[in-house]
């Protein structure tokens, strides 16, 4: 049969081709390579890969100076950390430098990373004190520093100026009560049937953004000393408020499964008036190619409960550079970390789109010029708290929080029951 003959021939040809390709693929050059594992955003920040940014190729220049070949492996947040953890468990790994996000930086992971106190003593990071102490503290367990902060993502309140103006508001809400009031008034249906939700938050993606919303009402999961504060009157009031807003249609009906992408889309299409999201989304919200309201989505720090004595609240996630304990090029990795952490390069990375961890960077004129929200972000990060992950069961606790808070907002449980249940289930996990 002709077809069989053809199949046989292609089989033979393929086998030959595969053999030769296999040989080619294994061709490795005998250079010193430094392999970095991170999210794409770090590669972009460190190498200036995004069009129109002016920071330059910080990592590339370092590599050229040190005669090193840089290999950069990227993946999205969860797959990247899954990969990292597997590599860390091996006897020796090809990964020399990894960027970890604080929610995964548990004590368990930190034990697989190289302690950095000695490295820091031997080869100082320029102006180490310029990195906020609380960030360094959150990356130090048992007096051992295991990662150097590189990037922060802090939540702010994004609002659609045009929509606000449409409904008669001249400026953004300035108190939590105003936020609720504005959100209610910004929930309406247009004549063509398009629904606009006054308030949205990626509640299906993780606890981070929801907690920043609850934070506005003075509620928190736990304080920085791991004292669980979840069963508080503020939390009950906040959950009750969200439930009411959900029932009224102010929060979208698919609140419980809202992903980061869906929130972005709803803001871009003008179907959400106020969103709680990291400051850095500003660029995406105002992208003329993707947004119906380019230049009209503004961001301010989240207003705090006046009774708390603070003016703004913010939650932040930190990305930090770490060296695997089983890496083969620790000296080179540390050298690159030092390079990326210098004050000058922090500004360059920020110009490339990074969220700089040095408050001093926000004073730089070039940065102020590039991003209209730098001042707001600087204010926010000064007050920002992280979700502590200095205990091993933090992922479980996050899941419990998501589950109970969703139940409360959707009305499957009363806020009191949800808060009490959260406390009962979380406390034993934290104090292990």
């Amino acid at each position, binding site marked *: 049969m002709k077809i069989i003959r053809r199949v046989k021939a292609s089989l033979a040809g*393929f086998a030959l081709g595969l053999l030769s390709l296999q040989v080619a*693929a294994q061709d490795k050059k005998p250079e010193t390579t430094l392999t970095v594992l991170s999210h794409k955003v770090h590669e972009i920040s460190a190498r200036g890969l995004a069009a129109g940014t002016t920071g330059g190729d910080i990592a590339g220049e370092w590599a050229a100076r040190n005669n090193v070949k840089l290999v950069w492996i990227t993946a999205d947040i969860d797959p990247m950390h899954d990969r990292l953890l597997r590599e860390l468990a091996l006897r020796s790994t090809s990964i020399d430098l990894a960027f970890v996000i604080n929610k995964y930086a548990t004590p368990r992971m930190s034990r697989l990373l190289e302690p950095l106190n000695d490295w820091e003593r031997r080869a100082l990071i320029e102006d180490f004190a310029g990195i906020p102490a609380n960030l360094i503290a959150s990356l130090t367990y048992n007096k051992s520093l295991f990662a150097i902060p590189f990037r922060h993502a802090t939540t702010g309140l994004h609002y659609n100026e045009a929509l606000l103006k449409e409904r008669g508001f001249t400026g953004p809400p300035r108190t939590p009560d105003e936020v609720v009031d504005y959100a209610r008034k910004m929930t309406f249906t247009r004549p063509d049937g398009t629904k606009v939700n006054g308030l949205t938050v990626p509640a299906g993606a993780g606890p981070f953004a929801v907690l920043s919303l609850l934070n506005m009402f003075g509620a928190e999961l736990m304080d920085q000393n791991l004292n669980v504060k979840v069963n508080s009157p503020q939390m009950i009031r906040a959950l009750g408020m969200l439930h009411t807003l959900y029932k009224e249609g102010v929060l979208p009906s698919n609140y419980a499964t809202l992903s980061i992408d869906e929130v972005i889309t709803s803001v871009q*299409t003008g179907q959400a008036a106020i969103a709680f999201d990291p400051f850095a989304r500003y660029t995406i919200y105002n992208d003329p190619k993707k947004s119906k309201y380019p230049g009209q989505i503004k961001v301010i720090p989240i207003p705090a409960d006046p009774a708390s004595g603070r003016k703004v609240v913010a939650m932040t996630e930190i990305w930090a550079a770490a060296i695997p304990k089983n890496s083969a090029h620790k000296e080179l990795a540390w050298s690159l970390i030092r390079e990326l952490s210098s004050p000058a390069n922090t500004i360059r990375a920020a110009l490339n789109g990074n969220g700089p961890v040095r408050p001093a960077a926000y004073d730089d004129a070039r940065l102020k010029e590039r991003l209209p929200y730098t001042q707001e972000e600087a204010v926010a990060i000064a007050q920002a708290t992280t979700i502590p992950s200095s205990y091993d069961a933090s992922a479980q606790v996050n899941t419990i929080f998501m589950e109970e808070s969703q139940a409360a907002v959707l009305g499957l449980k009363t806020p009191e029951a949800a808060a009490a249940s959260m406390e009962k289930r979380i406390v034993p996990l934290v104090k292990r």
Partner: protein
Amino acid sequence: MRRRRLHGLLPRLLRALAVLLMVAWSAGPVLFVVTASFKQQLDIFAYPPKIVFRPTFDHYVTLWNTWDAFLPTLRNSLIVSVGATLLAVCVSFLGGYVYSRYYSRLLAASAVYMIAIRLLPPIVVTLPLFPVIDFLGLSDTYAVLILLYASFWVSLCTMVVKTFVDEIPKELDEAAFVDGATHLQTITKVILPLSLQGMMASGIFVFVYSWNEYLFALIFTTQHAKTAPLVISEVMDAIYGTDWGVLFAGVTIQLVPVVALVVLGQRLLVAGLTAGSVKG
């Protein structure tokens, strides 16, 4: 070749309706994805859905420029998929033949074992596999993916081939033997042509699975053997938000070889039809 005809207007109307439904159901979401790859992002999420729109190639250009790893990884995907398919189909053909033509209690039990062993979720199997693959130095090679993908499909492919070879009368084997054919010749010249439908169906499954597979590729490859689905999954970004146009452009490109395979495979299926008419 006779076709069974359905007379009467009602059956014909019902059939037309069924066909229409089938096309809308199967092609609808895929059409959404393909057309979206040519739409500006705002048009993708516009409601009512924009049927008439100004097409753009921006996303494909961005895919080419920003995600320059896509094309090389497509090549890797092709190598791995073809390799896995050939390995799985060949190996399972031989196995399926034996399961069909031979019998022993042990053999029958091993057939059940072949199926039972597939019940463990692959993600759990990666836990011990990762350090072992690393230890063997197979990490980030085509070989590891080819071997894993093929292994995960041989159970089904073998059973499918067995079912098809069962249909081939044993008299054909004996006739060939009497004519002086060796065992191998019987297998390749008599059994093989008549099992083409089953092998083709199996081949499609293995190829499509390998082509789109993500979990093993993520865990076992980094650079040299990185496959296209990994690049596409990076477009689904939790920090920048997904660039939907680029995502759909990548997916559309990935669709092309599969469509080609299916069209080609259809010919093998039909070719098997004429061979089938030879059956007793």
